[in-house]
C-alpha cells in the first residue's frame, strides 16, 4: 500500500523537478494576478485590505486550475496511466497518490508564497495566518476535485476552458469558506467555524474523489 | 380590461416574465420536435442506404 503511493509520489515529484517550468508557472501566475488588482483598482490601504482575502484566494484557485489541465494528459499520451490501470494495484489508491503529488507540486508552493503576497495587501498578521491555514486546508480539496475534472477531460481534445467550467462550480464552497474565513480573521474575528467546514470538505473529498476519478480515468482510457 | 393589463402597476414585470416563459416554452417545444425530426431523417437515410447495399 505505502510502496505504491511512495513510488508514484517519488516519480511524479522527480518529474516535477525535472520540468520545474511547469511547477513555477502557476506560482508566477499567482503572483502576477495578485499584483494586477492594486494596479487596476487602487493602492489605497483600506481598499486592498478589503480586497486582499478574496483576490488572493481567487488567484490561488485559478493558479491551481492551470496545472490541473495537464495532470493526466501526458500520462495518457505516453501510456503510463494505461500501465497503472492494467496493473495489480487498486486504482483509487493510485489516483489519490496522483492528486497528492499534484498538490505537493502546485498547492503547497502557493501556500508558501501566499504570505509574501499578502503583505503587499497590508493584511494584518492574523489575516496572513488565516490565509495560510485556509489555503493549507483548501488547496488539497481543489487538487482532489480538480483531479476528477482532469480525469474526465483527459481524453478530450482542447479542454482548457472546459476543465475550468466543470471544476469551478464544485470549488465554490472551498473558495467561499476560505476567503470568508481569511477576511473575518483579518478583522480579528474568530474563524473556527469556516475552518471546520473546510476540513469537512477535505475529508469528504479524500473519501469520495478517488473512486470517482478512477471511474473517470477508466472512461477516458476506454 | 385595462386595469387587468395594468396588473396593479406591476404590468411590465408580470407580463415580461409570462412573455419570457411563453417564449422559452415555445423554443423548447420546437427544439425538441426538430431534434426528433433530424434523428428520424438521419435514420431514414441510413435505412435507405442499407437497403440499397443489401439489394
Amino acid at each position, binding site marked *: 500500500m505505502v510502496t505504491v503511493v*511512495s513510488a*508514484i509520489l517519488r*516519480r511524479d515529484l522527480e*518529474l516535477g523537478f525535472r520540468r520545474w517550468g511547469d511547477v513555477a508557472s502557476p506560482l508566477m501566475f499567482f503572483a502576477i494576478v495578485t499584483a494586477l488588482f492594486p494596479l487596476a483598482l487602487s493602492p489605497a490601504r483600506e481598499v486592498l485590505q478589503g480586497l486582499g482575502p478574496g483576490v488572493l484566494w481567487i488567484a490561488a484557485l485559478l493558479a491551481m486550475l492551470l496545472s490541473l489541465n495537464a495532470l493526466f494528459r*501526458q500520462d495518457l499520451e*505516453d*501510456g*503510463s496511466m494505461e500501465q497503472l490501470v*492494467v496493473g495489480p494495484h487498486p486504482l483509487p489508491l493510485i489516483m489519490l497518490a496522483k492528486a497528492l503529488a499534484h498538490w505537493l507540486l502546485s498547492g503547497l508552493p502557493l501556500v508558501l508564497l501566499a504570505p509574501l503576497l499578502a503583505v503587499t495587501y497590508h493584511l494584518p498578521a492574523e489575516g496572513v495566518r488565516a490565509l495560510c491555514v485556509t489555503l493549507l486546508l483548501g488547496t488539497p480539496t481543489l487538487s482532489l476535485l480538480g483531479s476528477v475534472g482532469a480525469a474526465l477531460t483527459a481524453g478530450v481534445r482542447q479542454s482548457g476552458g472546459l476543465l475550468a467550467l466543470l471544476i469551478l462550480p464544485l470549488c465554490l464552497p472551498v473558495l467561499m469558506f476560505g476567503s470568508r474565513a481569511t477576511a473575518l480573521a483579518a478583522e480579528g474575528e474568530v474563524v473556527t467555524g469556516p475552518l471546520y467546514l473546510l476540513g469537512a470538505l477535505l475529508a469528504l473529498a479524500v473519501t469520495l474523489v478517488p473512486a470517482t476519478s478512477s471511474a473517470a480515468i477508466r472512461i477516458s*482510457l476506454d | 380590461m385595462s386595469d387587468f393589463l395594468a396588473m396593479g402597476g406591476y404590468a411590465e414585470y408580470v407580463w415580461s416574465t409570462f412573455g419570457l416563459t411563453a417564449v422559452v416554452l415555445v423554443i423548447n417545444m420546437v427544439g425538441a420536435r426538430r431534434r426528433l425530426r433530424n434523428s428520424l431523417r438521419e435514420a431514414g437515410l441510413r435505412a435507405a442506404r442499407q437497403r440499397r447495399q443489401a439489394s
Partner: protein
Amino acid sequence: MINLSNDAMLVADELTLWRGELCLFDGLSVAVEPGQALMVRGPNGAGKTTLLRVLCGLTRPEAGQVHWCGEPVETSGEQFGRALAYCGHQTGLKADLSLAGNLAFAARLAGLHGEPWRDIMAQLGLASRADLLVRHLSAGQQRRGALVRALMVPAQLWVFDEPFTNLDAAGRDWLEARLDAHLDRGGMAIIAAHHELRPRPGLRTLELAEAR
C-alpha cells in the same frame, strides 16, 4: 518465478464492438490456455489493438464478457493485474525520466528489489542507454525499453501489440526464444503482429476480417 497455475485461462465470449458505423467484431469468442500463444492478424483498422485492449479490460465491449480464471477482468483487479503484462502501442515510459528511472519505478511498483532489468536490458543491447532520457532514445530503443518493462516483472499472460516492430533480426530471434521459454513454463501470450510468428506447438491464429 511466480507459480503459473495451470488452470488459469483467459476466456472471452460473444465479444461485440462497434466503432461509429463500423462493426469491428461481432460475437467473437476466444480462449487461451497455459502453454498457448494466440496470434491476432488482420489488415490495419481491423480492430487488433481494440481486441487486445478489450481482453485486458481497458476497453469495454458493447456486448460480451472477458473472464480470467472465472473472474470478469474488469473487476478481478489484483489477481488479473499480477498475471498480466501488457505492451501496447505506447511505451508506457515517461519521456522526461531516464530509461533506468522508468524501470526503477516499475520495479518499485511491482515490489521487486535491486535492478531486475539490468540483464534483460543487456540482452536487448540497451545497457549503454540506461541513463539517457527516454525522450532522447530512438523509436526502436523506446520499444525495446517498453519490452524490458513488460518482461522484467514475471507475468503469466503476455498481451503484446506488435512487439516486433522496430526490432532488428537479433531482437526478433531473442523475443521468439523468450516466448518459447515462457510458453514452456505454462505461460500464455496474445500477440498482434503483421509478420508470421515461428510455428510452434500451441500456436493458434485468429484472423480478424476488415471492419464493415
